[in-house]
């Protein structure tokens, strides 16, 4: 250990090895979780909250979360997007209780304080009191101002239909936040074409939220854990692929392409590879090239709460909602394009069988994350080891690396104040 003592509630020490170690307290400690809410989710970050296709019409709204803070996202009568904390200014009650819909505004059920679609307080019942004979009694003080008591607003920006929100009013534009490389991959899917929502899947996973973010930055596991992916050549260690990050390390993308089903150097270390595994109905994996490049797997992690998923033709936003140190909800918004033909929609819906809470691939991840959470804080080694592909954080042209997880922790330590004397 170095003397990398960090002034935190408990003097958390990051292991002297630096970004190739992750101390297990980051996944289990309630104080770390609270600091993440403050510094990350309510801090200078852009959080995914919706696709505009979910809110096509004035008055449309959905409820969601930024970190663990409940948020309403709306489209006002002029078409502008807004996001606000779903908490009445009066007594703190939940203002909007439905998942989505269309409304003129929101009325808290408790005392019927009413808010417009921008979150401004529009009315307070009995504000002027009531008449008792010829005398007016009760009511709010004369200097009570509606304008001072709206819902807490978040900054909102849409990038080609992807809606982000931030608690930081001074947040840089989304494009700048993403950086050139990540923007390229986001615009590869969101090029301005209107989307068609296919549906939402939700699951609650008994693991820390960072484990899913890391999972999608970790191509090493995908080549081993996922028998289904590997056996059918959908993702393999020996395919042309790369791992890229933005300049901070907080965002990353794994890019790969489908290969054939055959035993190769990439499967020799995989005891679970099944060369003779055949589908009785191969239409499950039937698909069509739809992007300019030949990449069939593009998994992008946008810090802190978004995963943009392309696996062949199944496209989805996975939104991470932390729920305490040891649980998170994963919300999968599946979509296609408004101009998809019937066959393409069928491909997307069928391939969705690979993903979600019942996904032929993703159930493995859920299991792995829950298994990690169950025992990571147990006595024994105090930190996870991330040395596959070296100890540095840099872009790589292969899959046998944990570089993007190291990149993530390089950034995480800085924003959380755990950087100490980094090695």
């Amino acid at each position, binding site marked *: 250990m170095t003397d990398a003592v960090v002034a935190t509630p408990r003097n958390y020490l990051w292991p002297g090895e630096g970004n190739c170690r992750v101390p297990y307290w980051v996944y289990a400690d309630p104080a770390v979780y609270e600091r993440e809410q403050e510094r990350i989710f309510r801090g200078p970050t852009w959080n995914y909250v919706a696709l505009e296709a979910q809110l096509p019409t004035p008055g449309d709204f959905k409820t969601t979360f930024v970190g663990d803070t409940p948020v309403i996202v709306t489209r006002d009568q002029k078409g502008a997007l807004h996001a606000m904390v779903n908490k009445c200014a009066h007594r703190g009650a939940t203002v909007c209780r439905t998942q989505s819909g269309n409304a003129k505004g929101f009325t808290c059920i408790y005392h019927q304080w009413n808010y417009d679609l921008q979150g401004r307080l529009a009315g307070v019942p009995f504000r002027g009191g009531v008449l008792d004979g010829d005398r007016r009694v009760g009511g709010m003080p004369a200097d009570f101002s509606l304008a001072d008591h709206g819902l807490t607003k978040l900054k909102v920006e849409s990038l080609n239909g992807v809606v982000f929100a931030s608690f930081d009013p001074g947040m840089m534009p989304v494009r700048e936040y993403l950086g050139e490389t990540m923007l390229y991959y986001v615009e590869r899917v969101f090029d301005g074409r209107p989307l068609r929502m296919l549906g*939402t899947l939700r699951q609650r996973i008994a693991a820390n939220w960072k484990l899913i973010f890391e999972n999608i930055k970790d191509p090493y596991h995908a080549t081993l854990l996922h028998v289904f992916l590997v056996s059918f050549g959908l993702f393999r260690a020996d395919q042309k692929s790369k791992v890229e990050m933005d300049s901070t390390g907080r965002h990353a993308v794994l890019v790969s392409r489908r290969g054939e089903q055959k035993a190769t150097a990439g499967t020799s270390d995989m005891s679970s590879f099944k060369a003779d595994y055949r589908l009785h109905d191969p239409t499950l994996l039937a698909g069509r090239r739809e992007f300019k490049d030949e990449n069939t797997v593009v998994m992008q992690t946008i810090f802190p709460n978004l995963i943009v998923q392309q696996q062949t033709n199944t496209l989805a936003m996975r939104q991470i909602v932390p729920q305490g140190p040891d649980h998170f909800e994963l919300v999968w918004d599946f979509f296609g394009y408004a101009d998809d033909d019937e066959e393409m929609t069928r491909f997307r819906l069928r391939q969705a069988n690979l993903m979600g809470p019942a996904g032929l691939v993703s159930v493995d991840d859920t299991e792995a994350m829950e298994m990690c959470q169950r025992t990571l804080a147990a006595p024994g080694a105090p930190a996870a080891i991330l040395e596959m592909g070296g100890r540095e954080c840099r872009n790589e042209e292969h899959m046998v690396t944990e570089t993007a997880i190291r990149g993530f922790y390089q950034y995480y330590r800085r924003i959380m104040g755990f950087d100490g004397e980094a090695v």
Partner: protein
Amino acid sequence: MSNGEVKLEIEQLLTDYVECLDEDRLEEWPEFFSEDGVYRVVSRENADRNLPLATLSCESKAMMLDRVTAIRNASVFSPRYLRHLVSGLRVRGPEAGAYLAQASYVVFQTMEGGETAVFNAGRYVDKIVFADGQAKFKEKIVIYDGARIPGLLVIPL
């Protein structure tokens, strides 16, 4: 068959179906479907909004078989026991050669070494045909009430 006999047959089909799942005889599961049978598990949220996405879908018996093969050989999940209860069967029809059957279901899940918890609840919306006197699902749509799946869903509902 009389209406009463049809309802008895369908009740028997549902009893056999959930027993097959609870006893982990998954290889037999596709056999409860007609040759052109389809199976879909959808959330109430998507169903209510007329969104086409299923949580799990099999468009053919072959796809059901592939699910079973994946459960047995590819997917990674902790051992668990399931118990399906079915109640409140209502049968209408036949319409276009199929009876329309609806029933409520609850699935309890017990992780190995763990306690029993309600895993899922909802309704079965089924189309049932008789082939050689045998009742089979031509279509089985499972619409679950919960917004979220706790953990993962592997064994069919």
